């Protein structure tokens, strides 16, 4: 473990300095996580008076529950769409902004501010835009396609609405990282290819895009984490999992079953499943970062 060659001797001070962090993590991270893990193996009676140890029953019931399986599918569709939309839009806008010779600072300013908007408020803005009776988009869709647009009743429309609201907010985050990634690519490489007569399109796909792969990987991981967890705000503020459970993503289901439905065993088991998922993503991320370090050094 890295440390300075010259260091201070006082052990008391060292423990004292790190104490706030340890106390907070122990109280609000580890203890609740352990409690959650234990609760996922228990079943409590409806009055919360007694709980019995039931081994993996909660997990088995979970994966037999059609609602949970449906929620997994919904989450995958949702995250996949958000990732596809916000990553491709972010990459497209970043490569355009990187090409433009003028107004780069202004362009950046005009594209990054949605990052500052809370997911829930992004959801409310889009709800207004797409509102069946008052939204401008709804009216336009109705006129052009003759389609009865109603995200408050139609499950596919609702899904589209939360995907748009979440992607919109996330585009600016991806944009910032793709800009940084693009600016780190040596200009000489691109120039050499240009001299060999490679067209701008070809240069993008054969040089820029492969060199962006670490950024791409990072942005994909962060977008997936965003859409799995932080999009809670969008769902809670706009659809509350509806209509008919069609936007009930996994994290919202944990909240709904545990906090509102008070089904603690099942909610805890769902939490543990999500925890395992995050552990998996984190390990994957660090494996990849390690490899990247070896490449460069």
């Amino acid at each position, binding site marked *: *473990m890295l*440390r*300075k*060659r*010259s*260091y*201070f001797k*006082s*052990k008391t*001070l060292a423990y004292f300095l790190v104490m*706030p*962090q340890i106390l*907070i*993590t122990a109280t*609000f*991270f580890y*203890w*609740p*996580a352990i*409690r959650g893990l234990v*609760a996922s193996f228990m079943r409590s009676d409806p009055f919360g008076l007694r709980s019995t140890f039931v081994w993996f029953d909660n997990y088995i019931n979970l994966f037999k529950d059609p609602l949970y399986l449906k929620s997994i599918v919904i989450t995958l569709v949702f995250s996949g769409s958000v990732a596809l939309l916000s990553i491709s*839009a972010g990459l*497209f806008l970043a490569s355009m902004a990187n*090409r433009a010779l003028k107004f780069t600072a202004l*362009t*950046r300013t005009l594209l990054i*501010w*949605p990052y*500052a*908007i*809370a997911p*829930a*408020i*992004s959801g*409310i*803005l889009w*709800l*207004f835009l797409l509102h069946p*009776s008052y939204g*401008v988009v709804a009216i336009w869709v109705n006129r052009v396609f003759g389609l009865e647009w109603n995200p408050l009743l139609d499950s596919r429309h609702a899904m589209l609405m939360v995907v748009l609201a979440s992607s*919109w907010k996330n585009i*600016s985050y991806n944009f*910032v990282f793709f800009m*940084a990634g693009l600016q780190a690519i040596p*200009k000489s490489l691109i*120039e050499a290819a240009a001299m060999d007569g490679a067209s701008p399109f070809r240069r993008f796909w054969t040089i820029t895009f492969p060199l962006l792969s670490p950024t791409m990987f*990072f942005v994909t991981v962060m977008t997936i984490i965003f859409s799995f*967890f932080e999009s809670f*705000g969008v769902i*809670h*503020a706009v659809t509350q999992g509806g209509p008919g459970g069609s936007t009930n993503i996994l*994290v919202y289901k944990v909240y709904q079953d545990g*906090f509102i439905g008070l089904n603690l065993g099942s*909610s805890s088991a769902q*939490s543990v499943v*999500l*925890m395992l998922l*995050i*552990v998996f993503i*984190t390990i994957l991320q660090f494996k990849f970062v390690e490899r990247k370090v070896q490449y460069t050094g």
Partner: protein
Amino acid sequence: MMVEKTPKLDLFTYISLIIGIIVVGFPIFYAIIAATLPLDEVSKVPMPLIPGDQFFDNIKEAWVKGNLGTLLFNSFVMASGITIGKIIVSLFGAFSIVYFEYRFRALVFATVFCTLMLPVEVRIVPTYEMAANLFGPLQGLFDALGLNSIISWFAGHDIEVNLELSLLDSYAGLILPLTASATCTFLFRQFFLTIPEELCEAAKMDGASPMTFFWKILVPLSKTNIAALVVIEFVYGWNQYLWPLLITTSADMTTAVIGLQHLIPSPEDPPTWNIAMAGALLVVMPPVLVVLFMQRWFVKGLVEREK
């Protein structure tokens, strides 16, 4: 500089950027227009795209109806508290991990690292229980050991020890659980590791105590990192959703982002979207201004934090 004439592609570049900016900006543009219109205009189908003159009336109504004075203040306290708390806790933590030698150093580092894998979303109910009674675990220990009966025997009459300290509906509850952050601690750790060894050696030779070295040398050197984190963490704190939703039940203790929901007209109410949008503008204003005016720090913080 590369000289290559691609007029068509340049035109395409600028046109796509303009379209991109318009599409990205449209939701907020639409909200601004709606916030300037009177009720009968905003509920027209389709809503006119020319601003009206009701902006300040709508803002005033949103302010009163949404209790936004109180809620914006709460958001401000929460965001600042999280920002300051996080930075202090992480600076101290990183200082301890990098500049000291003790037996449990690796364990401490691993403990901090693993919090990355425990976002609040995966421990909703138990964290809430913890915040509802901080002494819950202690009380459990009390009950398990039968200490209450011992105490009442000892005291000679029936007393019961009830340990309770609730963080619900308090600023401490909104702030404290969010002040531990693996990412900030990592950022400072990485930065401290790049600081030349000689600085610490020289300070020690001059007889500086660890805390003098920390305040006089380490903190001033970390200024740009701190500035970058202030921007990121303020926006992060302001936009928290799940945690304030769980921990606040009183309408006066919640945050602006959550309280905004009460301004959204339900299907039975008159469609006061002009008021809702005026409220939304008020709530997004502080973090948006912070990001726009401290853009350089913001981009630096965002990119550095993930290294």
